Each structure stands twice: as structure tokens, then as C-alpha cells.
């Protein structure tokens, strides 16, 4: 089976000389949800930005069989939807409906069609009732859902989520996990939240110094890299 995302021997260095990716190999197949773990600065975000050509390094990246290059950018960006960590940066239009329609309009759809798609996407994430609101008036959880709707409106085949659960309160996190679990697309889940990965992902990779240090099932990777919160030993005085 052909992979949806195929990254081979990817290298990337920032202008200041920092090596962010150092020979990375990664594949994502239909129906998969892959959790990406790793310390801050291990190259996770840099990797994500390569998937739709926001950054270009040396090596081969292909999405849905298309090599990611200038010619294919428009199509690649339709196929692979990035949900960024900070929803405020993602929701830049004045109202929710205009924001969700932003992607479809860029795909060249006419206004009626873009609006219909935006409404459908808002329905899918359960946010149809806020379509006329300004993003400022939404809660963190609502913002995240609208941001996801903005991506879904482009009908992508792959969702890439960067720390989707940060800034959300626990009920908001649960609701988001339910939503993500329901969405049929293949997903790449970049997160520190191991519980979130346990619920959603069927595979995990561990980033270290710009390459994949290990992969396997979520539990295997967590155990191998000690990537879980360990219970603190508390002194008697602090317990009182």
C-alpha cells in the first residue's frame, strides 16, 4: 500500500546554524493515527512545517503520492491540513464563518459553495451556532473546534495536529478527543499529552535530535523512553 505521507532522509538547518532535522524517515498510511513524541527542540514542529512546504530542507517529502515542491504546493496544502497550537493565530478572519470559508475560497470555490462547505464543516465539529461570532468571543475549546472546521472545510485526507489539547480545560480536552476520534482522516498527532495519544493513536514515534530514535505502539514508546509523568515522592510536610 502506498503511504499517504512519505518522508525520506530529510535534513534541515536553520539560518543560525541549528540542525533541526538530521536524516529523518517517516511514513503514514491510510487509517492510521501516529503520535509524535519528543522533547522540546527535538525537531517535531520543524518536521510538521515540512509536510506542506512551509519549510523546505534536503531530502524527499511526498504527500498522497505528490512530491512536495513549488508546483504541487496548492494541491498538497489541500490534502494535508495543519491545526496549529495557537488557535488565535489560526483564526485570523473577523468572523467564524469567514474564517472557515477562507480555505475553500483559496481553493477557488465560488462564494456560495465556500459558504456551504464552511457551514457543513462547522456542523461536523458542533460549532454551527457560533458561525456569526467573532473569534475573540469564543472559549479556548470552541476556538480549537473552529480551527479544525477551517481545515475540514478543505476536505483534506490527512490531519496534522500540533499540541491540540494545550490551553483546554479537562472537559474541553475530553470533548476534543471525542471529536478527533470520530474524524475518519489519517492523523499525525504532535503532543506531550500521553493520555491523548493513548486514546487516539495506534502507533507512536519518538523524536530525538532531529531523527526518529524509536517507534512502535504507543505504550512501547512511552515505556522505552520513560515518556510518562512519574508519581512524585512527596514529603510528609507537603502532604498536610
Amino acid at each position: 500500500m502506498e503511504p499517504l505521507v512519505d518522508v525520506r532522509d530529510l535534513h534541515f538547518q536553520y539560518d543560525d546554524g541549528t540542525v533541526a532535522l538530521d536524516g529523518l524517515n517517516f511514513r503514514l498510511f491510510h487509517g492510521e493515527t501516529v503520535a509524535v513524541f519528543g522533547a522540546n527542540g527535538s525537531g517535531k514542529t520543524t518536521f510538521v512545517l515540512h509536510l506542506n512546504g512551509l519549510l523546505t530542507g534536503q531530502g524527499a517529502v511526498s504527500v498522497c503520492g505528490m512530491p512536495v515542491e513549488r508546483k504541487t504546493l496548492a494541491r498538497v496544502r489541500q490534502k494535508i491540513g495543519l491545526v496549529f497550537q495557537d488557535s488565535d493565530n489560526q483564526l485570523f478572519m473577523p468572523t467564524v464563518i469567514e474564517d472557515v470559508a477562507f480555505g475553500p475560497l483559496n481553493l477557488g470555490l465560488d462564494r456560495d459553495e465556500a459558504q456551504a462547505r464552511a457551514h457543513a464543516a462547522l456542523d461536523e465539529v458542533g460549532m454551527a451556532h457560533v458561525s456569526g461570532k467573532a473569534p475573540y468571543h469564543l472559549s479556548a475549546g470552541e476556538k480549537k473546534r473552529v480551527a479544525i472546521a477551517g481545515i475540514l472545510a478543505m476536505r483534506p485526507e490527512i490531519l496534522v495536529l500540533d499540541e491540540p489539547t494545550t490551553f483546554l480545560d479537562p472537559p474541553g480536552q475530553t470533548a476534543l478527543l471525542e471529536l478527533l476520534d470520530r474524524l475518519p482522516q489519517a492523523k499525525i498527532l504532535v503532543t506531550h499529552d500521553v493520555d491523548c495519544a493513548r486514546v487516539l493513536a495506534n502507533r507512536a514515534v519518538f523524536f530525538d535530535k532531529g531523527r526518529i530514535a524509536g517507534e512502535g505502539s504507543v505504550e512501547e514508546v512511552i515505556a522505552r523512553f520513560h515518556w510518562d509523568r512519574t508519581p512524585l515522592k512527596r514529603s510528609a510536610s507537603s502532604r498536610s
Partner: protein
Amino acid sequence: MHHVVLDRWSRGASVIHRRDARAKTVATLMFLVALATAHRSFLTVGLGYFAILVAVMIAARLPLGAALARAAVVLPFTAVFAVISLAAGEPLAAMALVEKSYLSALAVLVLLSTTPLPELLHGLEHMGVPRYLLMVVQFLYRYLFVISEEAQHMRAAAQAKSASMRRVLFDRSKFGAAAGALGVLFARSYAHADGIHQAMLARGFQDRFRTLSRHAFRRADAVFVMAAVVLLAGARFFAEVWI
């Protein structure tokens, strides 16, 4: 904060809210020009203009007292000049300054509390204002909410830190701390701009903004503009001829 309240008001539903942004913009501009060029017996005429605005506010179901109070933000500035004019022996000039600046501010406030800013900007675009400038205004307004919240957190943090070391005379370290805080706020703003740019590209942006909303200039809008013309011209004529 002021802009949050106006933003909420502007999303109300009334016969005034429903009018096309262009109709309201034109009516407001006419009002401002009529006001700026009025000169005779200003007190009486001023009352007439005030009555017009109050009527619009009632039709728009705006909270009257709160809106009138909010327009008073111009008064401190005006008061300084009014006092100077009074001292210079020109009580009428002083009164004209207060009346005109207050009524102008109130008119703009009524426009903005019945028209969401993005819609107003759309209308302005159709009226020939450069799109580039309007897009900058739109982004400024959107991120005003985000960045000013960050600034508030930083101010709170700075106050918590400096509360214990008050000094009466100039304190260089506090000045430097404020500059440092603004440096950080600048860097964060820059990071926001980068993030927004990435998010735009990720959703297929290709160097041109396409937008959803359309404007329909209906018959009711034309009637609204006509009414404004008749009302303002009538008031003017009345003031010139009979007073």
C-alpha cells in the same frame, strides 16, 4: 474595555443594524460635515442634531445612558480648550467646541455600535478606500484583542514585581524594566504575525485575500440615506432661515 462593548452592541438586531454599511457611512459623514460647517446660533441647532442622534439610538435599541456616557471620552481634551476659550472671553466659542466635538464623537459611536467594524471596512472598500489599508485595519482590530490581553498580563506581572520598591524620583531600573517588557511584547507580536502567516499559507493562501461577505444595497438603504439628506438639509435650512 471600550472596543469590546462596542463590538457587542454592533452585533445587535434592529432596523438600523440591518442597514447597509455604506448607507450608514454616508449618513454619518453627512452628519459630521453638517455639524462641522454649522455656525449660527449653535445651541439650538445643536439640540436638533442631538435629537436626531438620540432618535437613531432609540431605533437601534442601544442603551442610551451608557452610549451617551461613552461618547464623553472626548470631553477631557475638549474641556482644556473650552476653558482657555472661556478665559479668553469667548464663551460661545467654548460652547461650540464642546457641543461639536461631543456630537461628532457620538455620531461615530452610533455608527460603530450599529455596524460591526469588519462590515464597515467592507463597505469602505466598496466606496474606494484602498484594500491594503483596510486589511491592515482588519488585522489590527482582530489582534488588538489578543495582544492587549498579553500586555495586561505583563502589566500585572510588572506591578506585582515593583510594588515593594516604590521610589519617588526617577528610577532607571523600572524604566528599563518597562522597556524590556515592551521588547518581549514586540517579539511575541512578531511571533504571532509569523504564526498567522503560516496558518494562511497552510490553508492555500496565494497572495490575495478572498472574502465571503457580499453587500446588497436595498431600497430601505436608499430610503435611509434620503431620509438623512432631507433631515440634515432641513435642519440646516431651518437654522439658516429662521434662527
